[in-house]
């Protein structure tokens, strides 16, 4: 089971990982975007990190909704509404819950990813964060054994998905303006998504 404190640890780890990778993600966005993705993610999750202590009493739905609202109002750019909607839709599947089993976790992920698709109208292969999220969800759902393994497989799939964006030509977001010139670069949003899922798998391993 994934508990609320697992998720709080996860969000704290996201804050740390985006602080650490701020420059890296921005560099990726320099190559095919406008050089702000790391700054955006850092700004958003820094704010989330600051609020976590005050969210300890809430259920998972309320926690994820609060994260959504914070991301929406601090990240900006394309990733702000996208990650914001991810958390908002995920929250809807977790309202009232204080822990999540594998099936619930899958529903939460699926709802969140559905939110990204709805908001951004992108599909697999467009060289976006969906290229990390979609294979991750697929891997999670098709892992028969336990939750932890499923999360690990999801994180692996997301990282591979992010790597696999390198040869793609972007068809959504800013990178799409570069056409052929977008080839040969890793998508920043897919990279930040893979980091998020890896941190989730790691957080789930801890005590709860």
């Amino acid at each position: 089971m994934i508990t609320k404190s697992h998720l709080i640890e996860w969000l704290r780890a996201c804050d740390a990982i985006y602080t650490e990778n701020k420059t890296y993600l921005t560099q990726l966005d320099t190559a095919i975007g406008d050089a702000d993705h790391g700054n955006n993610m850092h700004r958003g999750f820094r704010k989330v990190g600051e609020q976590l202590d005050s969210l300890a009493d809430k259920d998972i739905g309320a926690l994820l909704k609060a994260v959504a609202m914070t991301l929406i109002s601090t990240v900006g750019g394309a990733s702000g509404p996208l990650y914001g909607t991810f958390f908002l839709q995920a929250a809807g599947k977790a309202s009232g819950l204080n822990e999540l089993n594998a099936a619930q976790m899958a529903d939460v992920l699926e709802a969140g990813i559905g939110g990204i698709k709805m908001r951004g109208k992108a599909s697999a292969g467009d060289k976006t964060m969906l290229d990390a999220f979609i294979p991750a969800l697929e891997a999670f759902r098709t892992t028969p054994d336990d939750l932890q393994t499923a999360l690990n497989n999801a994180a692996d799939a997301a990282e591979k998905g992010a790597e696999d964006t390198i040869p793609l030509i972007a068809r959504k977001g800013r990178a799409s303006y570069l056409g052929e010139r977008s080839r040969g670069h890793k998508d920043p949003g897919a990279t930040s998504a893979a980091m998020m899922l890896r941190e989730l798998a790691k957080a789930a391993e801890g005590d709860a």
Partner: protein
Amino acid sequence: MKKLINNPDDVLREQLEGMQLAHHDLIHIHLDPAFITRKEATPKGKVALISGGGSGHEPMHGGFVGYGMLDAACPGEIFTSPTPDQMYEAGKAVEAGAGILNLVKNYTGDVMNFEMAADMLMADGIKVQNLIIDDDVAVKDSLYTAGRRGVGTTVLMEKIVGAAAEDGYTLEQLSTLARKVNRYGRSMGMALTSCITPANGSPSFEIGDDEMEIGIGIHGEPGIQREKMKTVDEITEMMTLGILEDPAYHRQLRAWSPEKGEWIDVAETDEPFGSGDQVIAFVNSMGGTPVSELYGVYRKMNEIIEKKGLTVVRNLIGPYITSLEMQGCSITLLKADEEILKYWDAPAHTPALRKGM
């Protein structure tokens, strides 16, 4: 990085504070969330006109808040779309019973954030329409990209639509005019140098001493194509013909359907420019190019336009939609009919654009 700034984290707030001090006779700046409104309340029954986008394009948009142009502007972080709470608060502050028209440049982030803000405002019972501006001919197809970017036409749009709002246009009339301005306007830009955001401290792209980027946007991103440096006549020809010879452009743009109560895609098609057309010509500095060089561009542009049988009937020349200190320029041509000219010529009084008052 050498800039007239303090701590990079404080740049936006401090510059907004300076702007407030400088222009307190015209505007009022709200922080947290950040938005800029006119000093005077929106007159009852006037449609509220709002725009916004990432910062770093000054004077756009904040410098265009004031009589005859915007009612409010929402500045995001540098080169990053503003967040919906900014547009929500700005909308609540300036709406005056006749609804809100948001002028949104076509970037994924801007479109989505303004859409979320519109949803929030409509939930409060306020009429809202989002008009997407997508005028950058450097982006060729719309099927395999996020569509044309919104660039120079935005400035002309804020002037023209702003004056029509002042003149009592309803939200529907104003949206119709704004869609026309968007269909009639086309732009193309180029860069001689990159630019540096305070947060990053290093150039957004590297470029050689004999190279230039053609078909740039306004976010310090590289262009569609890199070329060897050329003369101003050659560069101007490339841009002007790029605009004039661009064929009809078809695309779907997001708009709110009040009938269906949902966001729909609306088909839009530009007709290309043709001989006999009157145009408003806007030669813009990307920030670091001085106005003297813009006159060199204007000279050649005018020659080409006249050779093609069109006439420049109005113009705007200077740094109005910029990318920080980037050197380079853009050209925007807007086909001008009677309605457009009437509102172009109407008075305006904002920090960055003033005429007739």
